[in-house]
């Protein structure tokens, strides 16, 4: 334990002795880690992955009408799983179903408040409503009993409509070109996720690769600069293995620090994409990737440090 603590203290000392270089190097890895985190998120949200349902796309307030009365309310395009977790409970009719999503059925759940506003005392079930210009059928009435969708503005009022994510995209395409009644459609992240994977995969790979190359160069420079100090350590009893380990540890530390910064920045700048329960495993995986890149980048410099001939280094002026 003492050994590890000493090695850590020494590595930190070496890192902090060159703050500029460390920060620049870590930045490269950080960008890579942030891109990797986005990629992991995108992969999870992709069509094949059902581990974490997409956060709902909130289409800005749209005009909803049943032909007699109308109201401007929030429309949530989401998945059955997301809706269930958000606490959207069908009190009449049925909740969203997987088939609604698969077939992009034009079905909607309306909030209990909206039901009273549009239909009064009549039943709303199976009645048609217009959302923007698109015609939907009411299949259920919900009460909001849960935490909502998370993130800023994620709470669901009962003056709202919930539709399958796939058909929500249709509304958006109907209303967005003309800037129709709902105005411009923004923040439709859910539907955009599969495309995000294609963007972030090469970005993550390239930035991690370049970050790793940068780190390797920086570590090599550090080893060359510290030639005499390393030789001194060897002269007072450090083995090749110890020198190798300390150098590798330093590289892993810089990589992890960059990764941590990247993950934190990614979560801070873009909290919505990670839902209410931020995917801890995604962040951990991105961090582990950064540490791995650090280890890979540190390998060659560590070998060089370990192979250094202490006698020659101590004699050179």
């Amino acid at each position, binding site marked *: 334990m003492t050994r590890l603590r000493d090695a850590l203290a020494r590595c930190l000392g070496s890192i902090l002795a060159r703050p500029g270089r460390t920060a620049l190097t870590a930045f490269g890895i950080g960008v890579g880690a942030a891109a990797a985190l986005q990629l992991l998120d995108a992969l999870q949200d992709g069509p094949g992955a059902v581990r974490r349902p997409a956060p709902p796309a909130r289409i800005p307030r749209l005009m909803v009408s049943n032909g007699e009365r109308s109201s401007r309310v929030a429309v949530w395009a989401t998945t059955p799983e997301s809706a269930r977790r958000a606490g959207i409970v069908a009190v009449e009719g049925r909740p969203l179903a997987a088939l609604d999503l698969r077939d992009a059925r034009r079905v909607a759940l309306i909030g209990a408040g909206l039901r009273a506003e549009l239909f009064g005392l009549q039943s709303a079930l199976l009645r048609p409503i217009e959302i923007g210009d698109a015609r939907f059928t009411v299949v259920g009435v919900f009460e909001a009993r849960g935490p909502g969708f998370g993130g800023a503005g994620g709470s669901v009022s009962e003056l709202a409509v919930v539709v399958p994510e796939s058909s929500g995209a249709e509304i958006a395409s109907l209303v967005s070109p003309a800037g129709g009644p709902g105005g411009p459609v923004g923040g439709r992240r859910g539907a955009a996720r599969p495309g995000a994977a294609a963007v972030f995969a090469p970005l993550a790979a390239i930035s991690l690769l370049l970050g790793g190359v940068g780190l390797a160069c920086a570590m090599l420079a550090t080893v060359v600069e510290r030639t005499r100090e390393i030789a001194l350590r060897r002269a007072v009893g450090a083995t090749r293995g110890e020198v190798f380990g300390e150098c590798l540890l330093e590289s892993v530390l810089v990589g992890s620090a960059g990764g941590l910064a990247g993950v934190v920045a990614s979560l801070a700048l873009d909290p919505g994409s990670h839902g209410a329960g931020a995917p801890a495993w995604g962040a951990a995986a991105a961090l582990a990737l950064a540490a791995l890149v650090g280890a890979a980048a540190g390998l060659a410099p560590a070998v060089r440090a370990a192979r250094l001939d202490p006698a020659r280094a101590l*004699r050179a002026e």
Partner: protein
Amino acid sequence: MSVELEGVRAGRRLGAAERSSGEGVSLRIERGEYVAILGPSGAGKSTLLELLGLLTRPDAGVHRIDGARVDALPDAERARLRGRRIGLVFESSWLAPELSLLENVELPLVYQRLSPAQRRERAAGILGELGLGAHLRRRPGDLAPGERRRAAFARACVGGADLLLADEPTRGLDGREADEIMDWLDTRSALGATVVVATRDPARGCRARRLVHLRNGQLLRELPPGLRSGSRGLVARTPRGRARWR
């Protein structure tokens, strides 16, 4: 610690084949001996010290410490031996500039895996003995050359080395500073450590009880202490025949 070299060759200089019939350097140093290696610049003194300090592996020959061969030991064991039993003082003192004096002297103890408290106590103790107790937190750059040299000796001795190797220990120091260093070597020798000093200036600061001459990577005849070169110069036998020692 007793040390034995048998037909050792190392590097370009020491026991170099093109300068001799290739028999290398043979030298035996008994436990507790105080030996000075004399010779002009380029004679291989530093290489010999690096060899004795296990920093360099011999290219040929046998190196024994306390009767056990060390030339073929794996690196980790040589490093451990070097850290625990051998203290090295290099020509330019070689303290790490970004570490405080205390941290520099603690360095060998780090690799002996002592706890921080033990390290601090021992390093501060030996620095105190060498009159540097007031400078524990200062960087080597802030010190006088003599103080740096003393700190280097503190680092060499802090691990309990019983073989002390010093390359030009008094070079660049004034008379008083040099005397302090030589007194310290006397003390370590009196305490039972084997001491080997390399210097090109036999007249000054060498209080060794045994003198070994090295020239062109070859050992020349040893002289008893006190007998210095006269007007005729030293005459010694080399494998090629007779050579003059100026």
